[in-house]
């Protein structure tokens, strides 16, 4: 349907003593039939001038205003203007004022119309009163009724309630809505009261200070009656206020203008486009490209963030240094991931990938003959499914990244990000290029650092903090052929899933060993040693790995006849939590924010969780056009909760190893059902489903 009102590139200036004064520049927007649009902006931004043009009292210098496709030539009854000063004729009674607006109708019809509108605005009994006998609010109702008497197609209001006291103003708003609900008109309201605009309108056109341009157009997507104290509308109000320049951080941010992006997506992105258009100016550095969000790294954290953001209409670019599929350690997952996969819409793809099913963890503690087997299926109520997978990360990560592509993110593999561009403490983009080429600038409102252990941003900011209490070294590799681990005995028949397995964790002298069966007959094996202990062994990783493995008879036996398929990899100084996960215009996700010891298989979960949480927060930031650290901070506090719990558990784990506690919580889980339940839920990734503090306290009390 074509717009009822179409304002096309309207310009207007006035001659003053100081020369030509530009009042309106390139105003363009449309109003649908029956739509209520508000125009907000600082004083002198040309709002009233625009109204004068719309009502035909003034002509634009350039551009035109069309109503039903026809230009407006002169004032007419098709569009009635209601002003703050009030133009109810004080020398006429209320009735005569109303009749003034309905000239040309037959006498009887006019009288019945008067009665109708008098009733509609609640002035029955005051028909023969003179305006000076009425209150300000009543007068404004006369004004509205008289306007409606003319049966206008358009209603223009220039701060109609501006002269009223606050209480009356609020009442008038509700009354206007009531009137319009029964007598629908296309309305344009000029106001400087943002709350009034939000209360009444379908859309809000925010204008810049003189010369008036359109800063942005905000949709108010909330049903009537609107509760102004609702979080959504309060946020919206803050956003509009910020657009009006009433937020210090926003003002700071926009001192450096940017070029227009060619953003293909509607919604949030397009509105931002208009905003930048309003601030066009000389651009110091030419960006080769610009996107809404730039994600560095296509691993699980980056891919998850990109998926959610792209799914919500943002323009997302993922730059991944390597070409997928590529090897990565961290194969054991947790059942808690099902909820996140559902959120990402990737569940079906992961199911179809045919990964090895993991039903739980078996702990081999201090060479006990019998392992402690903790299966998620024992307490199936906590998770959508009581199993998870051992994945070869090459394929798993590719599935996640492909899913991000499918949701609309642009992914470029083989691209290196040289640096994050910071201006006055704000991330404004990155320097990046295909591997080996000279980097160029790509601008973005938000940069997501998902660079893994590279910690691109954290290193740049000096935020990286290794945890000295968890100074471990990991050596790991993969084996194939002749692996002979059989777990069928460990899992009760009823819960057993064909071909399933568990993650095996076995303590050794100075650390522990993992044994994670993957597809085919491949197994991921790693040893995690205290750095001090590892230092005592010879420096060659392969030697250290083999020596450490000799300490675990079980794993050695399972690997009998198997061959190593890749060199031993080493990671030292494993665990760190960076000082902060967010800054102005950037967030840190996954291993780029922290790295947890692999003991509880938490790395991938935290990365995906972090990616989703960060995306939620970035979406909120776009809603508010505010990318400050303060706005992004909720992500950090949200992800720190599960993280802190895992770190606590990990410290507990190493306390057990160091103390050589024979009486430890994992052994005790054999006998104590509530302890077992809690342990299983935590090991399955349900960090938020358990009160860890009380759990640890009760463990201590029990031992």
């Amino acid at each position, binding site marked *: 349907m074509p717009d009822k009102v179409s304002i096309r590139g309207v310009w207007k200036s006035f001659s003053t003593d100081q020369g030509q004064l530009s009042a309106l520049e390139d105003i363009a927007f449309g109003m649908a039939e029956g739509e209520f649009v508000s125009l907000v902006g600082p004083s002198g931004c040309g709002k009233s001038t625009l109204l004068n043009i719309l009502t035909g*009292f003034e002509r634009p210098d350039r551009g035109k205003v069309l109503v039903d496709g026809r230009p407006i030539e002169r*004032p007419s009854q098709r569009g009635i203007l209601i002003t703050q*000063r009030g133009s109810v*004729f004080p*020398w006429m009674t209320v009735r005569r004022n109303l009749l003034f607006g309905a000239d040309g109708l037959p006498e009887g019809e006019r009288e019945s119309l008067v009665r109708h509108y008098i009733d509609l605005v609640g002035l029955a009994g005051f028909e023969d009163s003179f305006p000076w006998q009425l209150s300000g609010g009543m007068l404004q109702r006369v004004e509205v009724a008289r306007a409606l008497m003319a049966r206008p197609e358009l209603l223009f209001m220039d701060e109609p309630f501006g002269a009223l006291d606050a209480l009356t103003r609020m009442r008038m708003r509700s009354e206007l809505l009531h009137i319009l609900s029964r007598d629908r008109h296309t309305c344009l309201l000029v106001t400087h009261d943002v709350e009034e605009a939000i209360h009444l309108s379908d859309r809000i056109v925010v204008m810049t200070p003189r010369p008036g341009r359109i800063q942005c157009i905000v949709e108010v997507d909330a049903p009537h009656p609107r509760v102004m104290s609702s979080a959504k509308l309060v946020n919206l109000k803050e956003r509009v206020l910020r657009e009006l320049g009433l937020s210090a951080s926003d003002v700071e941010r926009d001192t450096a203008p940017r070029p227009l992006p060619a953003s293909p997506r509607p919604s949030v992105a397009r509105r931002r486009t208009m905003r930048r258009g309003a601030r066009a100016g000389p651009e110091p550095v030419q960006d080769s490209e610009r996107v809404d969000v730039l994600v560095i790294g296509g691993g699980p954290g980056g891919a998850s963030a990109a998926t959610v953001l792209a799914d919500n209409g943002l323009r997302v670019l993922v730059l991944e240094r390597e070409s997928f599929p590529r090897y990565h350690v961290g194969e054991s997952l947790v059942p808690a991931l099902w909820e996140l996969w559902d959120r990402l819409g990737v569940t079906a793809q992961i199911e179809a990938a045919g990964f090895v099913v993991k039903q739980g963890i078996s702990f081999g503690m201090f060479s006990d003959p019998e392992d402690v087997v903790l299966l998620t299926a024992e307490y199936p109520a906590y998770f959508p499914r009581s199993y998870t997978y051992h994945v070869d990360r090459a394929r798993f990560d590719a599935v996640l990244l492909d899913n991000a592509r499918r949701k609309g993110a642009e992914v470029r593999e083989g691209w290196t990000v040289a640096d994050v561009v910071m201006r006055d403490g704000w991330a404004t983009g990155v320097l990046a290029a295909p591997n080996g080429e000279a980097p160029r600038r790509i601008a973005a409102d938000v940069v997501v650092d998902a660079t893994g252990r590279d910690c691109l941003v954290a290193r740049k900011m000096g935020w990286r903090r290794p945890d000295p209490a968890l100074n471990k070294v990991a050596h790991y590799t993969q084996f194939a052929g002749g692996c002979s681990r059989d777990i069928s005995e460990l899992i009760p028949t009823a819960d057993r899933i064909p071909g399933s397995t568990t993650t095996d964790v076995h303590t050794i002298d100075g650390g522990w060993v993992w044994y994670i069966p993957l597809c085919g007959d491949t197994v991921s094996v790693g040893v995690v040693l205290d750095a001090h202990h590892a230092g005592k062994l010879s420096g060659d990783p392969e030697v250290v790995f083999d020596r450490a493995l000799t300490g675990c008879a079980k794993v050695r036996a399972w690997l009998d006849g198997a061959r190593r398929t890749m060199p031993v990899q080493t990671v030292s100084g494993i665990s760190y939590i960076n000082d902060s996960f967010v800054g102005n215009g950037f967030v840190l996700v996954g291993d780029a924010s922290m790295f947890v010891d692999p003991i509880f298989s938490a790395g991938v979960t935290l990365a995906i969780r972090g990616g989703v949480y960060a995306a939620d927060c970035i979406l909120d930031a776009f809603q508010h056009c505010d990318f400050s650290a303060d706005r992004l901070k909720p992500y950090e506090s949200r992800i720190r909760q599960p993280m802190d719990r895992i770190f606590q558990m990990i410290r507990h784990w190493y306390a057990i190893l160091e103390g050589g506690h024979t009486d430890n919580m994992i052994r005790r889980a054999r006998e104590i059902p509530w302890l077992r339940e809690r342990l299983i839920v935590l090991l399955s990734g349900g960090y938020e489903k358990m009160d860890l503090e009380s759990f640890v306290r009760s463990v201590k009390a029990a031992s």
Partner: protein
Amino acid sequence: MKMLRRFLPFGAVALLIGLWWRAAANSPIFPTPPAVVAGIVELARDGTLIRDIFHSLSRVAVGYGLALGLAIPLGSLMGWYAGVFQAFNPMIQLLRPISPIAWIPLAILWFGVGDTSPTFLILLSSFFPIVVATTSGVHLVERQYVRAAQNFEVGGLRLFRTVIFPAALPQIITGMRVGLGVAWLVVVAAEMVAINSGLGYLIIDARNAGSRYDLVVAGMVVIGVIGFLLDLLMRRLESLNVVRWRYNNAR
């Protein structure tokens, strides 16, 4: 306190009469208040008073009516159209300061001694205050009323009749009040020189005919009372509903 205030004007009048009485008591010519009252009664009895009041008032009515008929349209045009204002305003400002009394010789020359000369002088004297007030009233009609009317596609004579004139009316009424006051002043002066009836003639005749100063003062008192009543009448106009909005602003 309130009662006292209400009696203050009467007290002042009583004081004036007292002083007058005291001053006149020893004068052989200047009449005392009782003598003046007796004079008024005498004039009323023989019908002269009523006849002279009627003549004076009818002259004012005609002259003032003509002034209204000329001044309001001209003032409206001058207030609305800048061109008309530019054409007539200098002339009006030039003629306005000339006292109507100065016109008496010319009036007699042009119209002779009869009803026309005083009527002309009244027209002349009340015309200027009304035309000036109307001009400014129309000129200062608040724009939002005119714009509202234009918005309702009301223009031309209907615009003037329903919007501009009512909006300017409070100021026009003020001009009319001033104009009527001046007219009443001028009619007495004109009757003293140019005619043989009316309250002005009564006064001059009483002096010429036998130095009847009691009748002279009686005529003065009657002129004062009638002027007072006329102003009272004009003030009543200001309380009409159609103009009260203007005077109610201080409400």
